[in-house]
């Protein structure tokens, strides 16, 4: 099953291309930001074959793209970008994924990590107690149906209006935490039933809350703009649209099966099912996916406020005023309508990012005013042992990568493989050795997401930094983790 790396053309030190001649169905070439080691890792499974498959999508523009955190997904690889023409192209639920707007939010505090050391466990417990975690677990925010529809169309803005947080929180979100194309009516009542009570809940799997210390600053100018400084205590929330988003994807993958037949599309994998953006089905999915994305933004906003209240209490008991500010919030799984210049032509495109982050350059109007001079923050969480990076996006990402960058380390081991290689006790011991406080909902989940199950985050970031599609701003070291 290994992919023959001989077919790749080297375009640049960190950029490789699978030519469109690789197989008969490819409409455009496929590109990957990588180095030799990452290519060899990707060649071992179906990642690169899947990347080539993405280039079959009707109306795909330029090239299918993968980032160095690429790993095998279902249909689409994870760590990939596909831009399709709004007029002639398709939209594909598989290019977004089941966890619509799975994303990460970085929160800064006003205190130092050194100050927080003595009550770190109290902070971890406060986060764990405030935010329900685990599979299918409902939360305390139960919404009547019409309120849920408001959340689906209003996103993080709705959450703030409902009393969860401050207005400035949403200013530091991609899309201000609200996709304008959302239509609650495009979301099935089953999706609403499945996820309606999960607002303000973390979920399981790779979702986590992490408390970190800013260990290194590489770029003072950008760090200043983002409100980050060395030694600062910060936190991250990694979660998505929960059961609601999963059901939206399931519903439309099912509905699009007959659309593919009707349109006569030839696709190498059924998970690539898609519908013309100009069709009723395509428009309905765009509206439903956007609504699910809004639900995820509302979810992270509600969790932010729960955490804020929890941290305030922990501080108050110690005569400290602990505040939380939103640095930024990015989506990892989403499709967006954006304008890009391709071969000298300005086109309106549907940019699918599956396990990829939007990365808009300095000066772009979609970036919050406070960050516009330095470019959009790109948040790249690693696994729970190794830490995370904050990057800044560049003009090159806009020019060459549809304004996109990597989203994380990317898995190296399967979940089953991770369970064979280590036990929960070993993982706990390793984390304890590094002084990382942990609260985990299930031992199985802890092992599956253990350090060692993922690629080396430093390596992934060196590739995007070297390629120049984003540059390093700060490195965060984990101090405490809450897992579902």
């Amino acid at each position, binding site marked *: 099953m290994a992919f023959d790396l001989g077919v790749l053309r080297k375009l640049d030190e960190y950029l490789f291309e699978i030519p469109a001649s690789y197989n008969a169905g490819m409409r455009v070439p496929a590109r990957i930001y990588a180095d030799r080691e990452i290519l060899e890792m990707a060649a071992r499974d179906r990642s690169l074959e899947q990347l080539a498959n993405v280039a079959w999508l009707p109306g795909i523009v330029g090239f299918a793209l993968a980032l160095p955190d690429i790993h095998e997904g279902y*249909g689409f690889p994870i760590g990939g970008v596909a831009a399709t023409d709004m007029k002639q192209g398709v939209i594909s639920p598989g290019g977004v994924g089941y966890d619509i707007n799975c994303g990460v939010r970085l929160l800064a505090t006003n205190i130092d990590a050194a100050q927080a050391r003595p009550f770190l466990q109290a902070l971890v417990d406060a986060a764990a107690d405030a935010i329900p975690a685990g599979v299918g677990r409902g939360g305390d925010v139960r919404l009547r149906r019409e309120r849920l529809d408001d959340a689906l169309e209003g996103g993080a803005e709705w959450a703030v209006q409902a009393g969860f947080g401050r207005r400035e929180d949403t200013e530091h979100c991609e899309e201000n935490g609200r996709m304008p194309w959302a239509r609650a009516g495009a979301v099935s009542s*089953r999706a609403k039933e499945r996820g309606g009570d999960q607002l303000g809940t973390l979920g399981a799997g790779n979702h986590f809350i992490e408390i970190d210390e800013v260990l290194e600053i590489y770029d003072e100018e950008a760090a200043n703009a983002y409100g980050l400084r060395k030694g600062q205590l910060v936190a991250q929330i990694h979660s998505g649209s929960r059961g609601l988003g999963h059901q939206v994807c399931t519903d439309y993958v099912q509905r699009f099966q007959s659309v593919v037949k009707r349109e006569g599309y030839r696709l190498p994998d059924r998970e690539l099912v898609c519908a013309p953006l100009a069709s009723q089905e395509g428009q309905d999915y765009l509206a439903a996916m956007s609504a699910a994305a809004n639900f995820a933004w509302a979810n992270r906003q509600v969790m932010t406020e729960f955490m804020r209240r929890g941290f305030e209490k922990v501080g108050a008991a110690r005569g400290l005023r602990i505040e939380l500010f939103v640095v930024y919030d990015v989506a990892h799984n989403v499709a967006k309508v954006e304008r890009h210049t391709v071969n000298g032509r300005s086109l309106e495109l549907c940019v699918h990012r599956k396990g990829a982050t939007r990365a808009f350059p300095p000066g772009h109007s979609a970036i919050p005013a406070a960050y516009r001079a330095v470019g959009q923050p790109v948040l790249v969480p690693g696994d729970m042992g190794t830490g995370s990076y904050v990057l800044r996006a560049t003009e090159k990402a806009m020019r060459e990568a549809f304004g996109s960058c990597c989203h994380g380390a990317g898995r190296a081991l399967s979940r089953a493989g991770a369970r064979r290689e280590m036990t929960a006790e070993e993982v706990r011991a390793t984390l304890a050795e590094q002084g990382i406080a942990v609260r985990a909902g*299930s031992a199985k989940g802890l092992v599956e997401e253990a350090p060692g199950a993922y690629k080396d985050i430093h390596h992934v970031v060196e590739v995007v930094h070297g390629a120049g599609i984003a540059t390093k701003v700060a490195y965060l070291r984990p101090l405490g983790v809450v897992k579902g």
Partner: protein
Amino acid sequence: MRGYEELQHTADVALRVWGRTLPELFVAAAEGMFALMGAPERLDSERELELEAEDLEALLVDWLNELIYLRDRYQELYSSFDVQVWPSWRLHGVARGGKAKPQGALIKAATYHGLTIGRLEEGEGFVAEIVFDT
């Protein structure tokens, strides 16, 4: 003669399932999927399903996704199943289970990715491979 085993897949969870008949195959797939999530303490709930799909693959995916929907909707896990399948393509199913908190990987959906349904090489029966999104 039905069963299941977990396969290697980097991002996700994958199962190979088999059964002497198509209904057995569908039961084995449901049993294998719920075995990844834990078991209910009591079987005090019974859910009935009627499904129609474009083809056999779609029927299998829909069956599993319907059970995942019921899991989240009612916060239940299921461990006992009855299935009837009719060609072109309809299913009647019953899932028995009860309230339980799922353990381990969050299975979000059964996918079409790498989905195969075939005949067993020796003797009679069917085998399928299914990748789940987690």
